[in-house]
């Protein structure tokens, strides 16, 4: 059933590309219908899969001569991420309700991207996973280059090239693993069971991990992320931060860590306390957490603040993966979900609700606009989203980051100390943005009040309210009752760890 999420997304994209142009409202409703169906299938798969382990959905020989199978399967991790994709898709369509330029094409690219993302999360054949992973690159480029803002062509090309370089690294690793294993199958299970030599894993693991890590925003390969997020139209930033970065993190986990477990073994020597690839990537993750937060603190553009906060939050995911223990990896998967929802919400507020009305994202200019009075909905939505982003208890971010830190403590306490600094700075930049954009002190003069009355902001529309309510309530629900997701994630992580990682 979950497989249909892929098919209806691509079918929707094809249909939107073919139907005659001009009927923008029709295109929107069609896209929304497809996205809601995808979400419904995701929810159904999520509920139906509760308590089940890995379930094969489809298994057909695809390229018999190379042993490639069209193999879709889902475990708890996949189901959680499919659910996330469904949410991001619906919210993305809702927040693109005002797209008037080439509407059909916009939603066609949007749904093609969504279809590729669903495909990656459901593939259990390395080859198929790679195919879906690359399918997602091209729509991203066009979404940003055509409908984007600030330096969109530069940002779109940068994003496309970073993604393609990352996927080239993955492809090299894939070819090498395929050739080395000598197996006649490219299914993840067969490759995992092929017992690749340790020396091979030692160099292939970092190659593949960095290849996927580029898309996960791993420092120092993160620079595509802020520029890409800022230039992208709202729905695309929501998808980029919400699910595309998760593709990278998911690849790191499912392919990097699972196929090459011995790549994480100690080297046998250590330089300044770093004795394995695991230490290297954990240090990069910690740097990403602190660096992203510090840079976010210094931004003058509202959207850049959110863009760098994504780098910081994705650092938690990578740190969680590098703990290699049950708690830490569970936390990492939780954080993927949580950040997907929260970053989507933040980008929606900044890029759609605020920017479309004020036409500026400069904090200094927003400061003079008294937005808490004029856009109370946006202000309160951002308060909620900001609290979730800071990791206050009661929101999903808290549960996720807390578990990552516990997992990290068990390995190296100083990682936790450094990441803790990142959290504190995280509070500071969220607070700063919140205050500058919405709650500045300056009192409006009579002249300003008149001007504001003469040019009132457009009213908040129903898609915006629905989108905010959807994402905020999901974050709250997961924060208050994390068992919903944990019951799915924990057994899957346990099975994954039992499959060979130390």
């Amino acid at each position, binding site marked *: 059933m979950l497989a249909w999420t892929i098919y209806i997304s691509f079918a929707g994209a094809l249909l939107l590309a073919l139907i005659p142009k001009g009927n923008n409202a029709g295109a929107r409703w069609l896209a929304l219908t497809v996205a809601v169906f995808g979400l419904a299938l995701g929810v159904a798969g999520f509920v139906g899969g509760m308590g089940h382990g890995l379930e094969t959905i489809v298994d057909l020989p*695809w390229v018999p001569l*190379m042993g490639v199978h069209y193999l879709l399967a889902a475990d708890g991790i996949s189901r959680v991420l499919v659910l996330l994709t469904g949410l991001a898709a619906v919210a993305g369509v809702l927040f693109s309700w005002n797209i008037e330029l080439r509407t059909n094409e916009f939603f066609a690219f949007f749904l093609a991207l969504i279809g590729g993302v669903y495909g990656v999360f459901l593939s259990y054949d390395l080859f198929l996973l790679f195919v879906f992973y690359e399918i997602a*690159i091209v729509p991203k480029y066009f979404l940003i280059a055509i409908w984007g803002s600030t330096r969109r062509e530069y940002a779109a090309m940068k994003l496309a090239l970073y993604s393609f370089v990352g996927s080239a690294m993955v492809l090299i690793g894939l070819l*090498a693993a*395929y050739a080395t294993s000598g197996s006649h199958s490219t299914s993840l299970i067969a490759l995992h069971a092929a017992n690749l030599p340790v020396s091979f894993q030692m160099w292939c693991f970092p190659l593949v991990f960095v290849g996927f890590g580029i898309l996960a925003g791993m420092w120092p390969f993160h620079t595509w992320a802020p520029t890409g997020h800022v230039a992208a139209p709202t729905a695309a930033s929501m998808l980029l931060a919400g699910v595309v970065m998760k593709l990278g993190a998911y690849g790191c986990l499912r392919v990097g860590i699972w196929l090459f477990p011995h790549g994480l073994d100690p080297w046998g020597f250590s330089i300044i306390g770093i004795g394995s690839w695991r230490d290297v990537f954990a240090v990069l993750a910690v740097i990403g957490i602190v660096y992203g937060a510090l840079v976010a603190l210094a931004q003058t553009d509202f959207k850049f603040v959110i863009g760098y906060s994504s780098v910081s939050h994705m650092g938690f995911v990578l740190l969680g993966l590098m703990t290699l223990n049950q708690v830490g990896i569970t936390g990492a998967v939780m954080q993927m979900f949580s950040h997907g929802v929260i970053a989507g919400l933040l980008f929606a507020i900044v890029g759609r609700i605020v920017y479309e009305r004020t036409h500026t994202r400069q904090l200094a200019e927003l400061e003079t606009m008294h937005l808490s009075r004029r856009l109370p909905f946006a202000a309160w939505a951002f308060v909620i989203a900001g609290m979730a982003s800071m990791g206050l208890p009661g929101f999903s971010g808290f549960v996720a980051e807390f578990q990552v830190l516990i997992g990290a403590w068990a390995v190296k306490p100083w990682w936790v100390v450094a990441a803790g600094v990142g959290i504190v700075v995280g509070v500071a930049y969220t607070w700063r943005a919140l205050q500058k954009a919405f709650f500045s002190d300056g009192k409006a003069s009579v002249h300003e009040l008149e001007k504001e009355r003469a040019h009132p902001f457009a009213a908040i529309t129903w898609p915006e309210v629905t989108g905010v309510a959807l994402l905020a309530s999901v974050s709250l629900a997961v924060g208050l009752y994390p068992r919903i997701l944990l019951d799915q994630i924990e057994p899957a992580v346990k099975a994954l760890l039992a499959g060979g990682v130390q």
Partner: protein
Amino acid sequence: MNYADLFRVTLPETVLEVAALLVLVVDLGFLRKAALKTRVAVAALLGVVGCGAAILVMGSSSFPMMKPLDGVMNIPGGFEWTVLDGGGYTSVAQIAILMLTALTLLLFIDSAFTKHVGEFVAVTLMAATGGLLIAGAQDLLVIFVGLELLSLGLYIMTAFSKASGKSAEAAIKYYLFGGMSASFLLFGFSYLYGLTGSTNLHQIVLGSLTANSSGSPLFYVALVLIAAGLGFKVAAVPFHLWAPDTYEGAPAPAAAFIASVSKVASFTLFISIGTAILHVVRDTYPTGFVTVFSTNGPPPKYLGLSFPWMVALALMAAASMLVGNLAALAQVSVRRLLAYSAIAHAGYMLLGLAYFSYSPRSAEAILYYVLTYGLTTIGAFGVIDVVQRATGSDRMDSFLGLHKRNPALAAVLLVLFLSLAGIPPLVGFWAKFNLFAAVLRVSAGPVPFALVALAVALSAVSLYYYIQVLKRAYVMPAVDETPIKVHPVTMIVLVGIAAAVVLLGIFPAVLQGWIASFYPVM
């Protein structure tokens, strides 16, 4: 030797020649007064019918497909005396050559660069005959005759646009380079004959292993000369200089023909040579799967010509990938961009030839690549030609706003260019993957691995220049929004090619299975 056999083996070639003559007779004899459009349509259709007939007679002459017709025209003594081969990769390549020729002719229907319609179609068909000969040739003399037949046709086709100075310039450059490379090739052949006393590929390889000539430095001289001559045909660096000018100046159907049919034929020749080299050493490795270069275990045996040949090809491959991809970044003319991308693609294929195995796997991977590449590039030239005639230029900026001027054409361009860049699920991706996997399966040493890594990394570079064109078609604002009209036949052909690229990409096993069906089950 039996002339009836010879006739039977060369039946497809004969059919093509007859079709060429028929086109000439009809066009010059009966249609002198007819409108140009009618003449073009009739000539092109006759040509297409000729190609179809050639495929049909091939079906009746060299099938059953499951058995290679070893040594059809041979002097008693077995495989080692074959002059023309049939079955296996030869049949695949010949069918591909005929189909691609037919597609080129269909694109010709809409063009108006010449009044000498019959001559153009006839020359095209004759050049295709040369291609068919090369695909099956196992003898130096036949190889040379086939190559010259093909090349002379190409020079003429390049020069066919008499009103265009660029066309003449391109043709003269192509001709001079071509003549020189042919003389290199012939010189190399003469050394091989002198050293081994035979013109048969298998005999030469065998001769290179015998005591009195093995290890002679003259072999290296000969191989370098031959590599230069053949490298010219496939536009491999450093013998690529003609390609950008020719691709830019030649009329579109001629350029498409050079980029597709001529490539298929020349790479099939490379496959023949690789197979001949490994065929002889097969007996020392009865598994039929030869690692040309082994890094572990006992020091590599002297394997005749295979090692120096591999080195020459690997060097050309690396240089072509680098130069092609990097030079393409700087192009503003889309045709020149395609020329440099063709150089890069030739580099990938040469990599597959450098690490070649006697098992059909390598040959299949290379055929898969060159077939799909040829198909894609014909389509790309079709689109460029339409745009060029509508805007008067093939510069990147003439693609501005193409998605508004003709959405279908823009979509075709999108599919074809993304396939060339190797984006899944389009067929170009499978071709690349298949080829690189074949290389690594032959030898997993550090050198081939490094070369494959280089190739993959450079295909990431190539995405940049393909996107530069697509960006103009889809993203940047249009300067001129008048719709571009396309001849219905051209549109059908282009959409058909794009659909084939997508479908073959989604079901890659279909083409693979078709190619494999020509090989005996091993």
